[in-house]
């Protein structure tokens, strides 16, 4: 997830860079802006009634933040991995991990095991595994660039065998524009995008 600190422009309430893993009771691990405050990394677990589980300001994430180049520009990045899978009959696990840039490896930052049926995970609202900029204002102006780079997805087959990580493509995602003032800086269909306003 590409997230400047602060978001700039006229952001004066919540603004998220997020994605689900298309599980009904999965976990959302995301960048949360509130106005021009320091952004936070937050975890919202859809399997729990006490859903807010992690809330860490970027100022405490030095080991996890880096800067990378895409399309000739440098972007601040927090690498996030959220997963949900069955660990036993009617038992699921939600996980969130951050990539520790300082040591070069993923850190497990959140895990929750819970009872659920396959039907609960596959029906109802499951949202999008494509990253989104989730808006809370009617119009955004002069915000810094934000978005997602290198979005990847992996899934298992009906025998529980994992496939391989694949860059998100136009065959499993689509571009959605809500006309909230954001303009596309670039799009690599569909695993990377940056918007500003």
């Amino acid at each position, binding site marked *: 997830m590409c997230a400047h600190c602060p978001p700039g422009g006229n952001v004066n309430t919540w603004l998220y860079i997020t994605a689900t893993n298309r599980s009904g009771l999965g976990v959302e691990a995301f960048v949360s802006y509130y106005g021009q405050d320091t952004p936070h990394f937050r975890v*919202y677990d859809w399997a729990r009634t006490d859903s*807010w589980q992690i809330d860490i300001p970027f100022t405490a994430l030095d080991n996890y933040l880096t800067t990378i180049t895409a399309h000739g520009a440098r972007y601040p990045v927090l690498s996030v991995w959220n997963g949900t899978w069955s660990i036993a009959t009617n038992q699921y696990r939600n996980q969130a991990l951050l990539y520790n840039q300082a040591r070069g490896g993923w850190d497990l*930052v*959140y895990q929750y095991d819970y009872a659920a049926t396959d039907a609960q995970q596959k029906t109802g609202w499951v949202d999008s595994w494509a990253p989104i900029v*989730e808006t809370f204002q009617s119009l955004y102006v002069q915000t810094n660039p934000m978005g997602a780079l290198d979005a*990847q997805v992996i899934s298992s087959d009906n*025998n529980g065998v*994992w496939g391989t990580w694949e860059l998100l493509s136009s065959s499993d995602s689509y571009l959605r524009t809500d006309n909230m003032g954001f303009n596309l800086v670039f799009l690599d269909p569909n695993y990377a995008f940056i918007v500003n306003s």
Partner: protein
Amino acid sequence: MPIDPPPEPPLIIEQPGKPSGPIVDMRDAFARKTPQTEEDRAQARAFIDGKIEMIRRDPHMTDAEKAAAIADLEARR
């Protein structure tokens, strides 16, 4: 069906070709130390309300799909 944990995602741009170290359990450092507050509950409702608004604006969903998704989310508020 129970399945093994997924393999780690490769980092493509950040460190091309560099093998990733083992996963380290840092849950204690990140874990929430306090119980949910009324403010958390209000934020959770706002979080779900935001999803509902997003569904209402979704140009790719049918009215029936929107109604079902919104009903599901409202039940979780």
